[in-house]
């Protein structure tokens, strides 16, 4: 079908034969078979204090290494360690020390895991009550 035949009303149903879009075209099947860039490859909401995982996606387990120190192990590995982690932590109830979460200084992220450190603003390790992290990047 030549492009010049498209009217200002758009393409009417059944204008394009299946054969015309079989190759090199965007189809629902192809869209369904590719993972969308931009969606979180991993996410998890943890309570370090319980400790417990409230909910998650693409996580196989968590390891409580020490106070305010947890490792998240990824179920479907990332393509490499060059992914972006975003995170947020809350303070404990009735505690005025605000908590921050960061990647742990002793362990670099790997394709299959990342280690978190949660501390108060003075740098003391703390078990945050609502610790959320998400990973964006390429999956293996």
């Amino acid at each position: 079908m030549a492009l010049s035949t498209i009217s200002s009303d758009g393409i009417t149903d059944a204008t394009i034969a299946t054969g015309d879009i079989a190759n090199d075209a965007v189809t629902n099947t192809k869209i369904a078979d590719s993972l969308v860039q931009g969606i979180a490859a991993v996410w998890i909401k943890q309570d370090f204090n319980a400790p417990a995982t409230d909910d998650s996606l693409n996580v196989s387990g968590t390891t409580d290494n020490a106070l305010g120190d947890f490792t998240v192990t990824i179920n479907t590995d990332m393509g490499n360690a060059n992914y972006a982690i975003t995170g947020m932590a809350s303070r404990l109830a009735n505690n005025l020390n605000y908590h921050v979460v960061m990647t742990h200084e002793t362990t670099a992220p790997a394709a299959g895991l990342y280690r978190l450190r949660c501390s108060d603003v003075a740098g003391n390790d703390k078990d945050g009550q609502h610790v959320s992290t998400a990973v964006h990047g390429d999956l293996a």
Partner: protein
Amino acid sequence: MNQEQIKTPNFQNTHVYKRLVWAKENLKKYYSDYRIVYEDNVDECAKIMTPDPNWMACALQGGILPPLEAYSKLKEDEKKPNFERHSKGYLLHNSTPVKAMTEEQAVEYLIKKDCPKSVWKNYNKSNKLKMIICKKNQLPSNRKWRNTWKIKEELVNEDN
């Protein structure tokens, strides 16, 4: 937990991430009481691994998780000095998924997947156990002295 009424689609050759999305939409989270306690550094406190509830649901359901060998191959590649990016992700997605496991089998699988090999391979090869599996209620309930937790010396290593 009884999820056998939900039939797992044939997921071989399906990206594992997509399987996990399916599982999240169709399976109920399973909170295991098992905890894996291990020590990989004598100067550090004991570490406690907990199975993820969504992951455990997948393990019990079957037909979703890749075989352990696929993870091992990827770990080997990642250790190579010239590693830039995984090129064998297809091993995760194209291998025959593992069948439904019992909770105990799933814990063993998780240990081999996520615990350091130096721990689980030799957990009972020294005087003191490097790793034990326990129930959640066997752990201290107060985390005040969390950084002093160690596996009890008195625990008997039955293989020695």
